[in-house]
C-alpha cells in the first residue's frame, strides 16, 4: 500500500514539475534561512550557559536615588567585595573584575593582551577549564597569571608555557609574572573575555584605592550558596549599605531624592549570570531584553510560515485537479484515514527533500552568514543530538500540520462530489485568501521595517555630530612610553608634514576604534548644595581645534597659561546644568576643596551614540592623568597617504606597538554595527519573504488561470478585450495585497515607533514610507500575477476552449 502511495505521490510530483519545483524551492530556501537564523538566535540565547555554576552566579549592581531620578551602576569601590563576603551571609565565592589591556612582554615580544584582573575565586566560580598547570587555584599567588591556549601559542610557540615568566607593564613599570595555568580559549558564547587573567590586586588602580569607598571602577560577580536567593541576599546587605554609603544617602536626601519602592536610597541588585549578556540600564532601571534573538527567531518563523502557506495553498489548489482520483479511490473502498495518510505521505516527501536541501543550503551559506551577521555560530553546535532531534521534531510537526490540513480537506470530500470534479469553491478560497493576506502582511511589515531602519541608519551616518569626523584619525596610545611624552614625540615627528594640521590626545575615543573598546568616566560633585554629575574627559592642548569644536564662550586651554591645569572647559549641557547666567563664573570642585573655574564653554557635540541625549561634559588638562588616544587632523585630499605617514611616525616612537588608527567617521560607523546587522537581517528577511510570497502567488495564479481557461475562452469569443480579462484575473489578487497593506501598516507604524523611541536623535515616521512599502508589494505582486494573466488573456480562444 505504502508503495502505491509513494508511486502515485512521486508521479504526481513529477507530472507537474513547475509546481513541485516551486514548492521544493520555496520550502528549501525557507528551511535553509530558518536554520541559519535559529542557529544565530539559539547561539545568542545560550550565552554564558556553559558555566557549571551559572544558576548561582550573579553580577552586582547598585541602584541609587538622586534628585533627578534613579541611577544605576555596575562599578564598585575596591573594599566592597570583601565587605560583602565578611558581613553578608550567603556568599559562597566572590570575585572583583576589571577588563583592561595589559602590555605583556616576553623576550622581544610585546603583546597588548586583553586582560581581566580578578580575585582568586574567579576560576572556581566560572568554567574556564584548565588544560595544563595548576587546576585548583591558579591565581593563589599574586604573581601568578592564567593565559588562554592561543595566548600561550602567541607568546611561547611550541615551548612549555607553565612556569614561564613574563613581564607586564603596570603603571609604567614592568612587573614579572609566572604562568601558572593554561586554559582553553574562551567559548564564543562568553560575556567574560580574556587572553590573560591577573590578580585584581595587581591592577594599577588598586594601590591607591584599596581602602577607598569613593572610587568605583570594577564589576563584582558573586556565587551565592545553594539555597540562598538573590532577594534574600539583597535584604541581608542593607545594613552594610546603610553604613558604608551613609554620606551618599544623606546627600541624596538633602538634594531632594525620593526613596524607591523599597524605601531605600541606595540598594544593590543581583543580576543572574544568564541575563548579563542581555542587560542594560536605560534611565537607571535594569532592563533584561532578549528581543534581538527573539526577533531573529520571529523572522525565521515568519519565513517558514510563508513557505508553509505556499505549500498549503498549492496543495489545496492542486487538489482540484485530483478530485477524480479521490472520488475513484473512495468508490474502490478507500477510507478517510487511508486517503489522509496518502496525501500526508506525499507532503512528507516534499518536506523531507526540502529540509535536506535546506540543511545543505545552510551549510553552504554558513560562512557568509557569519561574516554578514557577525555571529560565531558553528556547525558543532548544531550537530548536538539535542539540536538534531529538535530540528527533526519541528520538521515532522510542520509536515503534520501543513501536509495534514490539505490532506484532511481532501479526504473529507464527498465521493459523488469529487467524482464530478467539482470543488465546493467558496469555503476553500476563503482559507486561501486569508493565508495570502497574512503572507503579504508579513512581507509589507518587513519591507517598511527595512525602509525605516535604513532611514534611521542613514540619518545617524549623515547627522552633523558637532565635530569634524571625516578628517581626523584617532588611535590608541598603547606603547610603553608615558602618553604625554608619546604625543609630544608625535607632534615633533609630524611637524614637517604639511598634510598634518593638528595633533592632540584625550583619555577617551570617539566612536569605536579598531581596538573595539569604549569607556565612560563620570564624575559627581556638590555644587552650591546640589549634586552635579558630568562626563569627565582628560584632554591635551588643541583638542577643540583638532576636532573642529566650536567655542561659545570663553576660551580653550592654551599653552603658557599656568593655571589651566586647574581649570575646566565644559559643554553647553553642563553649563545649563550649573545654571549660572554666566557660566564662566561657575566652577567644578575636585577633592572636596579645590575649585576649578570654568574658562570656556564648547558647543554641544555628540560624544556618545545617537541613541543617547547629549550629557554634561567637563574637560580637564592635567599631566598627571594618562591619555589613551591620539587624534590627528589631516588635510583633505591626501588622507590615505597621511594615514601612512602617521603610522610610520608612530612606528618610530613605539616600534613594538601595533598601530590601530582609523578615521573618526569609520569609528562612528562602527557604533551602528548593531543597527546595521539588524537592518541587513530585516532587509534579507523581507526580500526572502516577498520572493516566497510571490512564488506562492505565482503558483496560485497559474492554477486559477488554468481552471478558468474555458471561461476566458468564452469571454473572448463574446468579445472581451485582453485588458479587461487581464484586469478581471488580476484584481482578485491585488485586492488581497491591499487588505494586507491595511493590516500591516498600523502594526509596522506602532512597532517602528517603539523602536525609534530608543534613540534620542531620530527620524520622524512618514506615511510615505508605509505607502511605498505597500506600493512595492503591490507592484511586485502585479508583475508576478500579470505575466500569467496577460498570457492567458492573449491566448487564442479556440485553443482554450478545446482544452476542456
Amino acid at each position, binding site marked *: *500500500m505504502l508503495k*502505491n502511495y509513494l*508511486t*502515485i505521490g512521486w*508521479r*504526481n510530483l513529477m*507530472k507537474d514539475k513547475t509546481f513541485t519545483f516551486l514548492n521544493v524551492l520555496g520550502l528549501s530556501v525557507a528551511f535553509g534561512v530558518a536554520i541559519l537564523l535559529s542557529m544565530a538566535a539559539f547561539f545568542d540565547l545560550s550565552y554564558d550557559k556553559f558555566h557549571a555554576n551559572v544558576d548561582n552566579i550573579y553580577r552586582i549592581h547598585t541602584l541609587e536615588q538622586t534628585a533627578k531620578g534613579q541611577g544605576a551602576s555596575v562599578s564598585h569601590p575596591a573594599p566592597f567585595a570583601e565587605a560583602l563576603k565578611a558581613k553578608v551571609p550567603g556568599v559562597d565565592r566572590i570575585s572583583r573584575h576589571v577588563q583592561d589591556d595589559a602590555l605583556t612582554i616576553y623576550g622581544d615580544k610585546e603583546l597588548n593582551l586583553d586582560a581581566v584582573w580578578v580575585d582568586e575565586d574567579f576560576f572556581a566560580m566560572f568554567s574556564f577549564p584548565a588544560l595544563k598547570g595548576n587546576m585548583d587555584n591558579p591565581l593563589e599567588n599574586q604573581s601568578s597569571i592564567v593565559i588562554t591556549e592561543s595566548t600561550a601559542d602567541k607568546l611561547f610557540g611550541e615551548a612549555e608555557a607553565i612556569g614561564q615568566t613574563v613581564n607586564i607593564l603596570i603603571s609604567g613599570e614592568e612587573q614579572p609574572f609566572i604562568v601558572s595555568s593554561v586554559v582553553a580559549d574562551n567559548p564564543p558564547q562568553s560575556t567574560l573575555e580574556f587572553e590573560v587573567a591577573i590578580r585584581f590586586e595587581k591592577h594599577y588602580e588598586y594601590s591607591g584605592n584599596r581602602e577607598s569607598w569613593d572610587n568605583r571602577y570594577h564589576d563584582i560577580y558573586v556565587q551565592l550558596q545553594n539555597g540562598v536567593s538573590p532577594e534574600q541576599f539583597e535584604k541581608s546587605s542593607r545594613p552594610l549599605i546603610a553604613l558604608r554609603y551613609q554620606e551618599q544617602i544623606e546627600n541624596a536626601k538633602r538634594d531632594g531624592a525620593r526613596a524607591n519602592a523599597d524605601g531605600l536610597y541606595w540598594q544593590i541588585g543581583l543580576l543572574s549570570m544568564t541575563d548579563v549578556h542581555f542587560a542594560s540600564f536605560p534611565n537607571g532601571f535594569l532592563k533584561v531584553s532578549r528581543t534581538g534573538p527573539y526577533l531573529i527567531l520571529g523572522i525565521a518563523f515568519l519565513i517558514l510560515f510563508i513557505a508553509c502557506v505556499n505549500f498549503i495553498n498549492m496543495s489545496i489548489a492542486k487538489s482540484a485537479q485530483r478530485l*477524480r*482520483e479521490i*472520488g*475513484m*479511490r*473512495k*468508490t*474502490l*473502498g*478507500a*477510507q478517510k484515514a*487511508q486517503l489522509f495518510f496518502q496525501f500526508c505521505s506525499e507532503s512528507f516527501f516534499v518536506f523531507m527533500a526540502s529540509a535536506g536541501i535546506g540543511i545543505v543550503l545552510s551549510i553552504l551559506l554558513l560562512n557568509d552568514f557569519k561574516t554578514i551577521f557577525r555571529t560565531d555560530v558553528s556547525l558543532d553546535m548544531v550537530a548536538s543530538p539535542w539540536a538534531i532531534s529538535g530540528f527533526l521534531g519541528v520538521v515532522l510537526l510542520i509536515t503534520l500540520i501543513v501536509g495534514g490540513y490539505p490532506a484532511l480537506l481532501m479526504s473529507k470530500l464527498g*465521493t*459523488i462530489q469529487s*467524482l464530478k470534479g467539482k470543488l465546493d469553491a467558496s469555503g476553500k478560497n476563503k482559507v486561501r485568501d486569508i493565508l495570502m493576506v497574512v503572507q503579504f502582511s508579513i512581507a509589507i511589515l518587513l519591507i517598511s521595517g527595512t525602509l525605516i531602519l535604513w532611514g534611521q541608519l542613514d540619518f545617524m551616518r549623515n547627522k552633523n555630530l558637532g565635530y569634524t569626523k571625516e578628517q581626523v584619525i584617532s588611535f590608541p596610545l598603547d606603547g610603553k612610553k608615558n602618553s604625554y611624552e608619546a604625543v609630544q614625540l608625535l607632534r615633533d615627528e609630524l611637524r614637517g608634514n604639511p598634510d598634518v594640521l593638528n595633533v592632540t590626545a584625550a583619555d577617551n575615543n570617539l566612536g569605536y576604534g579598531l581596538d573595539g573598546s569604549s569607556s565612560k568616566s563620570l564624575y559627581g560633585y556638590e555644587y552650591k548644595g546640589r549634586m552635579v554629575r558630568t562626563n569627565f574627559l582628560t584632554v591635551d592642548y588643541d583638542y577643540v581645534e583638532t576636532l573642529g569644536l566650536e567655542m561659545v564662550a570663553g576660551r580653550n586651554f592654551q599653552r603658557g597659561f599656568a593655571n589651566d591645569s586647574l581649570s575646566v572647559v565644559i559643554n553647553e549641557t553642563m553649563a545649563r546644568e550649573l545654571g549660572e547666567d554666566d557660566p564662566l563664573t561657575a566652577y567644578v570642585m575636585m577633592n572636596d576643596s579645590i575649585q576649578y573655574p570654568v574658562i570656556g564653554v564648547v558647543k554641544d557635540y555628540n560624544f556618545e551614540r545617537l541613541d543617547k541625549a547629549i550629557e554634561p561634559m567637563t574637560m580637564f588638562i592635567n599631566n598627571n592623568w594618562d591619555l589613551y588616544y591620539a587624534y590627528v587632523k589631516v588635510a583633505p585630499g591626501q588622507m590615505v597617504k597621511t594615514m601612512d605617514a602617521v603610522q610610520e611616525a608612530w612606528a618610530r616612537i613605539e616600534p613594538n606597538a601595533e598601530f590601530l588608527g582609523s578615521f573618526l567617521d569609520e569609528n562612528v560607523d562602527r557604533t551602528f554595527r548593531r543597527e546595521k546587522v539588524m537592518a541587513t537581517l530585516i532587509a534579507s528577511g523581507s526580500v526572502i519573504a516577498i520572493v516566497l510570497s510571490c512564488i506562492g502567488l505565482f503558483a496560485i495564479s497559474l492554477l486559477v488561470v488554468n481552471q478558468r481557461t474555458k471561461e476566458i475562452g468564452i469571454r473572448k469569443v463574446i468579445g472581451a478585450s485582453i485588458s479587461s480579462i487581464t484586469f478581471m484575473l488580476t484584481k482578485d489578487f491585488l485586492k488581497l495585497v491591499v487588505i494586507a497593506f491595511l493590516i500591516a501598516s498600523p502594526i509596522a507604524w506602532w512597532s517602528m515607533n517603539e523602536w525609534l523611541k530608543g534613540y534620542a536623535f531620530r527620524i520622524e515616521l512618514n506615511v510615505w514610507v508605509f505607502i511605498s512599502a505597500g506600493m512595492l508589494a503591490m507592484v511586485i505582486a502585479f508583475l508576478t500575477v500579470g505575466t500569467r494573466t496577460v498570457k492567458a488573456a492573449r491566448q487564442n480562444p479556440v485553443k482554450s476552449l478545446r482544452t476542456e
Partner: protein
Amino acid sequence: MLLQLRNIFKWVNSGGQRLFLLKDINLNVEEGEFISVMGPSGSGKSTLLNVIGMLDNFDEGEYEFLHEPVHTLKEKHRANLYKEYIGFVFQSYHLLDELTVKENLEMPLLYKKFKGTERRAMVADMLDRFNIVGKKDLFPTQLSGGQQQLVGVARALIANPKLILADEPTGNLNSAQSEEIMGLFKQLNSEGVTIIQVTHSEKNAAYGSRVINLLDGRMIK
C-alpha cells in the same frame, strides 16, 4: 434476493422547495439478474445507481442489501459492504492517470488488504482474461477509449464482486467497442455476476434480462 429498495425518496432543497430526484422507488434485484436502466437525460438514472452503490444517501425509504438494512448502517460499515460486493464502471472510465494499467487494476486489492503474491496472481489473471497483458505497463492516456473501458471493467471485476453497477459504460465508445463490452457483460452475467447498467441504447438494453424505465425520478412500467 440480492437487494431490495422500498419506497425510496431522494430530494434536494432548492429555493425552499423540495426538488425530487427519486420518487417512491421500489425495486427487487435477484442474484444473477442483468438489469438495464433507461430514461431521458436528467431522469435520475445515475442518482439511482449511486444510491444502489451506496455512494449517495437517500432521504426516505428502506434499502436492504444481502439482508443488511443499508439505511441504518454507519458510513464505515456501508463502505465495507460496497467495497466487498460491488464493482463500479463509469462512462468516463475514471482510471487514475498517474498509474499504469497494472497498478490501476491492483488498487482495489490494496484497499481490500490482499497479500502481495495474491494481488500479483489476481492482476495477472485479469490481464490475461481481458487480453491486455501487453498493455499492462502503459498509462491510461496511452490507450484508446475502448481499451480504457476494458481496464475499467477489469478493475471493477478484480475483487470478485457480486454486483456490477455500470453508468453508461459505452457512452463514449464506438459501436464495435460497445459490442465488445456488452458481450463481456453478458458473459460475466452468465458466470453469475449481477449487473445493473444505465444505457440509452435499446440494443444494449437487449443484452439484459429486464428493463427499468425512469421519468422524473419515478419508475414507470
